[in-house]
Structure formats: C-alpha cells, structure tokens
C-alpha cells in the first residue's frame, strides 16, 4: 500500500485502541465506574435517582467535536472461545476495546480530544496499568494512548474524502431539496400557486436562509467509489449500528493471517465495498506482540482477529454477504473451530457487545449519503447564485 493509497483511503483517519484493565479487587469497583460511565442509560438513570441533573453525557462532547464519524467502546470480560481445543486465556484483566473513525488524521484527532476532554479522560482509561493523565503532559498522554493502539491490517471507508461536517451539510441540502420537491408538486396541483412567482421567490429565500451554513463547497464523493455495492440499501433496513467481532486464531497461523490481510485490495475494490450498507470497516490483528507493550499483563494464548464495521442493515445478513468473498472466508477459516458454517459460528460466538456507541449521523444510510452527494451537485450552483 503506497502512502498515496493510505491517504486516499482515509487510513490515518481511524484508530483501534485495546486497553487491558486489571481485575484486581481494588480495581473491580473502579471498573464498575468505568462500566457505569460507558453505559449512558444506566448513568442517566443513576443521575435521575440521585437527583443529579448535571451529568454531561460523553456523546454531547463528541457531537460538539464536529470531527467524529463514530466511536465505540466495548468491555470484553472474556475473550471468545470457539473450540474446545482453543487454550483458555489466563490473563486477569478486562479488555477495553475502542474503535473510531474521524477527520484529519489520528494525531490531530487525539490532540483535539485531549484539548476538549482534558482530565475527564481518566474516566475511560485510568484503570490501565500504564495510565498517564493528560494533566501530566499532553505528549506523555499521547504516548500512553499510542501504546494502546493496534495497527489496522485493513480499512474501508465508503466516502473517505468527506468529513463529518460535509456529510451533515450534504444531508441537510438533500433533505431540504427532497421536501421542497414534494411541496412544489403539491403546490403545483393548486391553481393559485401556478401564477405565484412571488410565492416561489419567498420559498427560495427561505430555503437559502435555512441552508446558509451548508453552502461551503463540498467536493463530490470520490468518483472511484460511485457504483460500489456498499452504497446500496441493505435488504433488511436498520438504523446505522456498529458491529465488532473477535475471531480467535491459533498463534502459529498468525503470520498467514497477516499475509492474507496484507493482500486484500483497498478502496473501492475492498471486499467490504461489495456489502450493501457498509459505512466503514476495519480489521486488525491483536496478538502477543501487542501485549508486550503492556506492563504487568499476561500474554494472550491465541491471536484475535478484530473485524469491526458500521453498517445500515442487520448484522447477520451483513456478515453472511461479507463471507461470500473468498478472501475474507479464507482468512476467517483459519480461526479456531471455523469449519462448516463460518458465518453462523462467528455470529454466535465471536460478536462483542458494545458498551457505548456514538454515531454522528445515525439515521443516514450510505445510500442516502451518496444521494446527498448527487443532490449537492445538482443544486449547489442554484443555491449559491441566490442574492439577498
């Protein structure tokens, strides 16, 4: 993969962090507080019971950051075991898995996150054995987070050249134009509107006034991505959701998995581009090499392949469609106990529950985002030509 490929596919705009949290008695109560923090509904309920109204949800912070497509935390108390032959893990820790996709690259995102959240990040990561607070120095904290980072082996983004604000602005224009198109047709059926040039002018003015914060020029979605199956609506509609799987793999097969992941094509040729409703997807190998960076944490006894994505449809049909790709199926078949129905095994035994999730535009499907790009192209000149 060339540096240009990495830039073009948004490679530096996604991150996966895996943080072992020790399960010592003292920490157990702290871990509960981490869980509580992550479980927003529980937190809100607690706040209500205690009469505390001032608990700012983390998601509000994310929304205001403006550069976060999604973020997801999962607490993994026990790693998946898919075969009796798979050795049991002995590590006395919980894994905190964090995945996110953002604008402008990892370093800038992390800097913004630290600036916005400061020492409140303690709530998320303070149980990690090597925790360093941002208060002790931004750079030291950045190194701490960097040590939790797992390199992605594969990454897919359906609209890699669009920022969060681009998506939001394009969707607003799209929805506005759609509703305007409908109202125009309704009005056209009424004879008083047919001669109503003034009425149309007023409507145009009102529309431009509503859309004035979306009128920066947004480049169209990368033409190489037009026509990918990911931009089709999935058969089973569902609000956008994140899915994460950890597939255990025998340690001796780690090298083969890495090699096969390395050979996956990127961008619009990625296997994920062929699965309807895929916004973003990523794969990463979590193995003993990663855990060497973590002090006082036992090594893993298997390698774990992380498969994680943000999708529009239900998880099961999405995974089934993905596994129609020979390359992906061959990779997953190297896992422990992956013999006959790989999709069913992975779905049943390897899916990781999420503790909390933030999606910036949870009701917009990939199909709508692509349609919004078309709407933007079709209406931009007219919208910006209007003069107060």
């Amino acid at each position, binding site marked *: 993969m060339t540096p240009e490929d990495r830039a073009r596919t948004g490679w530096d705009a996604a991150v996966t962090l895996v943080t072992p949290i020790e399960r010592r008695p003292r920490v157990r109560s702290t871990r509960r507080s981490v869980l509580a923090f992550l479980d927003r509904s529980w937190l809100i309920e607690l706040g209500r019971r205690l009469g505390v109204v001032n608990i700012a949800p983390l998601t509000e912070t994310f929304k205001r950051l*403006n550069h976060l497509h999604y973020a997801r935390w999962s607490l993994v108390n026990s790693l998946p075991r898919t075969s009796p032959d798979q050795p049991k893990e002995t590590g006395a820790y919980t894994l905190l898995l964090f995945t996110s996709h953002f604008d402008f690259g990892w370093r800038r995102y992390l800097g913004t996150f630290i600036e916005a959240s400061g020492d409140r990040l303690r709530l998320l990561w303070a149980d990690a054995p090597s925790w360093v607070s941002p208060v002790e120095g931004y*750079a030291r904290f950045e190194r701490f987070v960097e040590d939790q980072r797992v390199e992605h082996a594969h990454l897919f983004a359906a609209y890699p050249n669009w920022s969060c604000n681009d998506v939001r602005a394009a969707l607003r224009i799209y929805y506005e134009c759609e509703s305007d198109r409908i109202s125009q047709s309704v009005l056209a059926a009424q004879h008083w509107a047919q001669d109503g040039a003034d009425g149309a002018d007023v409507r145009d003015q009102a529309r431009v006034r509503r859309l004035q914060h979306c009128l920066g020029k947004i480049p169209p979605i990368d033409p190489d991505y037009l026509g990918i199956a990911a931009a089709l609506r999935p058969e089973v509609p569902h609000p956008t959701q994140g899915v994460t799987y950890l597939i255990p793999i025998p340690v001796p097969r780690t090298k083969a998995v890495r090699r096969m992941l390395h050979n996956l094509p990127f961008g619009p040729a990625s296997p994920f581009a062929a699965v309807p409703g895929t916004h973003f997807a990523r794969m990463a190998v979590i193995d003993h090499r990663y855990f060497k960076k973590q002090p006082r944490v036992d090594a893993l006894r298997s390698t774990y392949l992380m498969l994680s994505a943000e999708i529009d449809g239900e998880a099961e049909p999405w995974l089934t469609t993905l596994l129609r790709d020979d390359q992906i199926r061959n990779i997953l078949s190297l896992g422990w106990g992956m013999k006959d129905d790989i999709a069913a095994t992975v779905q049943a035994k390897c899916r990781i529950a999420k503790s909390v999730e933030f999606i910036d535009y949870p009701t917009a499907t990939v199909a709508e985002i692509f349609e919004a790009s078309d709407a933007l192209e079709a209406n931009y000149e007219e919208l910006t030509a209007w003069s107060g």
Partner: protein
Amino acid sequence: MVGMTLENVQAHVLRPAHGALTETSFGFVALKDPEDPSLVRSLLRRLLDQGDLISDAEAHSRGHRAGACHRHVAVGFTAKGLRKLGHAYRPDRVQRPLHEDDPFKQGMRARADLLGDPPTEWPGQAWSGPDMLVWVATTGDAHEAGLDDLRAAWGDFEHHVERGSYPDRPVLGFLDGTSQPFVSELMPSLERLPGSGTVTRDGWRPVPLGEFVFGCADAGGERVLPAPAEITEGGTFVVYRKYAFDMTAFEAVLTNGVDRGLGSKGDVAAKIMGRYQDEDARKVWPQGDYDAVIPPDRANGREPSRNDFRYADDSYGYACPLGAHIRRANPRDALGFEGRLTERHRIIRRGVPWEEGGEKGLHFIAVNARIHDQFEFIQRQWLNTGSSFRLGDDIDLVAGSRSEGATDLPFVVQGPRPVVIRAPRPFARLVGGAYFLMPGIEGLRLLATEPG
C-alpha cells in the same frame, strides 16, 4: 527564572522591534565552502560584540531610550545549517508529531503537499535551501549604512536578500498583527490581555510562554527543548514565508460583493477579513454591532479594547462571517469548549510588508515552539479547509492555498440575507519560505565559539 529566560531570548521574537526600526532586511545565506562555518562564527562574534545581537529584554529596554538603538539583528538556522556548524538538531519527544516527520528537520519545501503550497522558484530556496537567516531591523535613515557591513559579510557566502518596511496599512489595507498572543511574563500590567490571551469562561488568561520559547512550560504542561539543549534553550522556531498579493483577485471579489448587495467595497473587505479597515473600535465587527457582542464582564464603563471580542455569541456568523480570515486564523472560542481547542494553536506574527516594481506582498513571520501544532495546524486545518467551520472545502481567501492551485472560490456571507460571493483566486500567492531555529543568546555565544 523567567527574567533569565527573557535575557536569553533573541530580540524580535516576543516583542516587535521598537517603532523607529521601520526598515527590515532578511538575508538568506548558504554555507557551501569548507571555510564558511568559520566565517559564520566570526560574523556571530562580531554581531554579539557590537551589541547587534541582543536579547528581547535588552531590546525592549533600549526601545524606551530614544536614539539608543539603530539596528537589531536576529539570527536563525535551518537544521542543515546547524549541522554544518557542527551541531546536530534532534526534536525532543514532546514536540515530535505522531506518525509524521519533524517539520523543522524536514524543512518547509519538503512539506509543500501537506501545507498546500504550490511549487515555488524563490531565489532564497536555491542551493537546496538556505542554511542561515540574518534578520535585520534598522531605522529608516540608517538603513543603507546599517547594512553595509552585513552586505560585506554576506558577500563571503551565497546569499539572497529580501527587504520590507512598515507603512501604516500594510496588508490589503488592513493593520497586521492586531491581535498577538499575550504572554504575561512580558507585560507588567494586564491591560492588553482582553482579546489577546486565551479566552475562558471567566475572561482571558495569558498564553504560556512555552508556546513560543523552548525550555518553558507550554499549554500542555510540558517543556519543548530540542537537542542540542545548550543551543536551543531560550530559542524558538521561526516560520518565514514570502507572499505576493494578487490585487486583481482582491478587487474582483470586492466588486462581486458590491454587485450582490453587500454594501461598499470596504464593507465587503470587512466581511472577508473580519475587521473593518478603519480603526473605529465600534466597527471592529463587519456589521458594526460591536455593542451587541461585547462581553458583559468588560462593560465596566471603560471604552473596550477593539480586540476584546469573542465569537461564541455569534455562532451563526451573522456579525462576523464563519469564513472571515481573522476568525479562521484565530478562532478564539468559535469552536466551543470555552476556547480549549484553540489554546495550543497560537502564533506570534512579525509580518513585514514589501513592495517591489509595482508588486506588493508580505514577509510573513510566525514564531512558535511546535511548528506542527501551531503554524502548520493553522495553515492545514483552519486555512486550507473549511470543514472545522462548517464551510466544506472552502479555503481562506486571504492565506489559504492548494498545491494544485485554487480557482472560483466561494465565500459565504451569513446573515438574514445570506449571500455567496466568489473570488477568482486566493489573494496571497506563496513565493517561497523556510523554517528556521532561532537559538537563545547563550546558544549563539556557543555557536560563535570555534571548536576546540
């Protein structure tokens, strides 16, 4: 400690040269011959002995004594230049950006794609880039004489000289450097703080000295001190960029704005820049409704500073457009989080206008301790793309750029009657530039010492 720091910081860095020093020359020097490093050491010794190379504290003190000073000189080096003098530069772990090369080590030209810079053919970049910067400020009457000895010294090297001076209204008719970061260590009173420090919920607070000077605590609570520490302590990074103004493009967008009902050319210019060209404090904001946005805690009966404003109360850009130059280059609290997202992205500017053969422009100078977090962050994230400000891919009309060139640029003027005007091109074209490390005064003394 702070007093000691200011004694060690070169003049020009933290405070501008005093008003009488109106003429500026930038000498860009290449060290090609084996004996050149020795000649540089000799030049440094002479400038130190003559009192040309002085500290910020001394320059400030002299500035208060009329006629006490006719010339200040500051000196900086590229990483290559330091190496030729026998000192290997190494970024410390605090300043080194994750997953990117160190900007100073790599040099500005090698980072053109990241910065959106077009290809340049600036003479100062010949000889695979300059090794040394000699920055000279003199009084108008003494300028030619004040440069004689330096010209003779430069004559020993490959060199290129740029010149500029300070008229009243230098940059497209606007005062430059109106809002500089306020560093409390420099001022006995806090009169200049509002508008120039870091905006907080309770008012303004000074920007930590370490944002601009190596070895001092920065806004992240750390001290940037690249190796070799004995050279860099009290020093800083200086970003030099020569811009040429495209007055045709500027006039075209003003005319377009007038045609589209935005008022006079001055009104359109104010929308684009974020300030009016005149100095009327009540017309700082483009729509002149300064009274409506003045922070209540400053409404104490005293005439407010013309720089004492925020953007949080104008989140829709009705008073100052979201894409106005000063709002993008220094967003204050426009990005929310009580200004925390902007604190680590401030630069001190020492711009000097130039005019040659009918062309006008600016020698843009930025002083900062972490180039990637400060100058480059502003250029890349705020000026070259509008996404942070909900402006899509719009570049800043004044200082934004694209490597491949940018044409037909929209500028959205928000308001009850929103209008989108268009510029044929950005107003400033990069001619060339480089990153320099300006050592501390003690560092210069070490550099002036012959090895052994």
